[in-house]
C-alpha cells in the first residue's frame, strides 16, 4: 500500500500534439494517494486529449514533458503496459466489439491486469458481487461488448471494469455523460466507494453535476490546453454560476505563477 500523500500520478510540463496540432500546452498536475481531482473545461479545451495521452493512445504524440505513474515514467509504454501498472481510463465513448462477450472480455482483462489466471469460481463470485452493487442484470455478461448498449449501460460497464480492476490511478473521462439521475447516483456511489488511501482518481467532466455527488479535493480548469485555475471544491460552484468566460484572460499565465 502507498503511504498517504505519495504522488501516484505526476504530470510535468506535458505538451501533446494531435494530427499536427498542439492540443496540450504544458500541463503539470500531481495526484497523491487518497486524492480525488477534477478537471473541468469547455468542449475542445483538451480534457479528452489529456485522458487518452495518459492511457497512451498512439494518435496523441507527447512532444515534451513527463508522465510518472508511481514514480515510473510511462511515456514510452503501450496502453496495455500502463493498464497492467494499474492505470485505468473510463472512456467517454466506450468502443463496441461485436462477437466478444462481456464475460470473456472482463475475464481476459482481469487476467491481464492481475498477470495471473482467475479461477472461474472466483471470477463468478466477483462478478456477481459487483453487478449486484451496480444494479447490472446478469444477462449483461452474455451480451457483446458495448454492442447495442445504451449510453447509461456503457457507463455502468465502465464503472464495473474500474471496480474489478482496482486501479492505482483511475481517470474517468465524462463518466457522467449519458446517465440519468439514478444511474449518475449509482456511478457516483461507486466512485466514492473506490476512494482509498492507495488510490487516486481524476474526474474529467464537463458539468458540475457529477461533483454534487463526488466531492473532489482539488478542481482544475483546463482552457486551450493549459490549466488556468486550480482550487478547492468550491470552484465548482463558481464555475456553475459564472461559466468559463471570466477565466479567459488567465489563459496565457501559467497557473503556477498565479499561485
Amino acid at each position, binding site marked *: 500500500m502507498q503511504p498517504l500523500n505519495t504522488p501516484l500520478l505526476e504530470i510535468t510540463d506535458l505538451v501533446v500534439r494531435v494530427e499536427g496540432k498542439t492540443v496540450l500546452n504544458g500541463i503539470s498536475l500531481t495526484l497523491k494517494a487518497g486524492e480525488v481531482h477534477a478537471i473541468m473545461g469547455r468542449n475542445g479545451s483538451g480534457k479528452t486529449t489529456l485522458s487518452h495521452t495518459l*492511457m*497512451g*493512445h*498512439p494518435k496523441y504524440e507527447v512532444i515534451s514533458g513527463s508522465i510518472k505513474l508511481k514514480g515510473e515514467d510511462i511515456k514510452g509504454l*503501450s*496502453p*496495455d503496459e*500502463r*493498464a*497492467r501498472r494499474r492505470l*485505468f*481510463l473510463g*472512456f467517454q465513448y*466506450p*468502443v463496441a*466489439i*461485436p*462477437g*466478444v462477450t462481456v464475460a*470473456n*472480455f472482463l475475464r*481476459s*482483462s482481469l487476467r*491481464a*491486469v492481475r498477470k495471473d489466471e482467475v479461477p472461474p469460481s472466483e471470477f463468478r463470485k466477483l462478478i456477481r458481487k459487483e453487478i449486484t452493487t451496480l444494479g447490472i442484470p446478469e444477462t449483461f455478461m452474455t451480451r*457483446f*461488448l458495448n454492442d447495442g448498449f445504451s449510453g447509461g449501460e456503457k457507463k455502468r460497464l465502465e464503472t464495473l*471494469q474500474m471496480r474489478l*480492476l482496482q486501479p492505482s490511478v483511475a481517470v474517468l473521462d465524462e463518466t457522467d455523460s449519458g446517465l440519468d439521475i439514478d444511474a449518475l447516483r449509482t456511478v457516483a456511489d461507486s466512485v466514492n466507494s473506490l476512494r482509498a488511501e492507495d488510490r487516486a482518481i481524476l474526474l474529467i467532466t464537463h458539468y458540475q453535476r457529477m461533483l454534487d455527488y463526488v466531492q473532489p479535493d482539488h478542481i482544475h480548469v483546463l482552457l486551450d490546453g493549459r490549466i488556468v485555475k486550480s482550487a478547492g471544491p468550491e470552484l465548482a460552484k463558481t464555475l456553475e454560476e459564472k461559466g468559463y468566460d471570466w477565466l479567459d484572460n488567465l489563459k496565457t499565465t501559467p497557473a503556477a505563477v498565479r499561485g
Partner: protein
Amino acid sequence: MGATTRKPSLREVSDAAPIIATGCTARLDSQGDFALEGCREMPAGVQITNSEGLQIRVARGIHCTLPVRGLYKLKPSAKIWSFTTVIHLEEGSSLEYVDEYFGTGSTACTVQAATRITLEAGAKLKYQAILQWPEGVQSKHTQVFNVGRDATLEVTPILLGGLQTHLTTESHCLGKGSSIQISGAAKGKNKQTFEFDIITEHSVTDTKSTFDYLTVMGDQSKAVFNGLIRILQSGARTDAYQKSKNLLLSPQATIEAFPKLEIATDDVKVAHGASISPVNPDQIYYLQSRGISALEAETMIIDGFTEPVLTRLTEVFDLKSRVSTALVGAPIGSPREFAT
C-alpha cells in the same frame, strides 16, 4: 384381389419419427482407403457408402441426434484427387453432417471436389464443410444444393487452407416453402487465394435464402466474391439476401466483392451488400487499455468477427474449438482419427 400397401403420410412418419444417434465418422483417403469409425455398423435408416466419394442417405422419417462426419485425407503422394460427396435426405428426415478436408505436408496437388445435396420434402440438414488443404493444394469445389418443399438446409463452409481455392455454390429452392441458409467463413494468409461463385436460384413461391460470408484476410492473401440471387418469374414471395463482411489484417491483402441480382418478378424481398474494413484500431486500443496485449486484442476481435459463424458449428468431434483456434491463426490440427 391382392392387398395394396399404402405409403404412410409424412405426418404419420413424423409422429412415429424414429430417432437415432450416430456420431459416426466415415474416412476416406486419396488412395481409396475407406473405413467407418465410431460405430460398428450404421444404424438402420442411415447409409454411408464409398464410390469415389462418400454417399450418405437417410431414410424417410429418420432423425439423427448426433452428427455424421466424413473425413477426406489427402496423402502426400497424391498429384490429383477427384471425389464427390452425395447427401440425400428422404422425406421428413433430419441430419447434421460434417465434412473435413485436410492433408499433411505441403503437397502440390489438384483437388476437384463436388458435393451434391438433395433434400426431399420436409427434410432438414445442417451441413458443415471444413476445408483445410495443405498449403500447396489448388482445389476446385462445386456444391449443388436442391431443396424440396418445406425442407431446410443450413450450410456452414469454413475455408482455411490450400494455395488456391475456388468454391462454386449453386443453391436451388425447388419446393414451395423451402429454405437455404449459408453462413461461412474464410481465413487467408501468405499468398492464399479464395474465389467464390455463389448462385442462389428461386424458382417457386414462398422460398427463403440467406447467405452470409465472413472473411479475414492477412498477409498477401486475396478473396473474390461473385454473388448472384436469381429469382425466376415463378418465384413470387421470395425472401433472399446475400451479404459478405470482410476484415483486412494487412495492407497487402485484397478483397473484391461483386453482388448481383436478377429478378424476374415483383412481390419479393431481396437485399444484398458487402463491407470491407481493416481491424478497427480503436477496438485494439480499448482492449489494450484493459491490460490486453495488442496481439491478444487482435485475436479477440477476429474471434468476435467470426463468432456468428462459429456458433453454427457442432461441438461434437471437438469441431467448434478446433475451427475457432484455426480462425485466429493457429493450425486446426488433424482430427484424431488420422493421427497416424
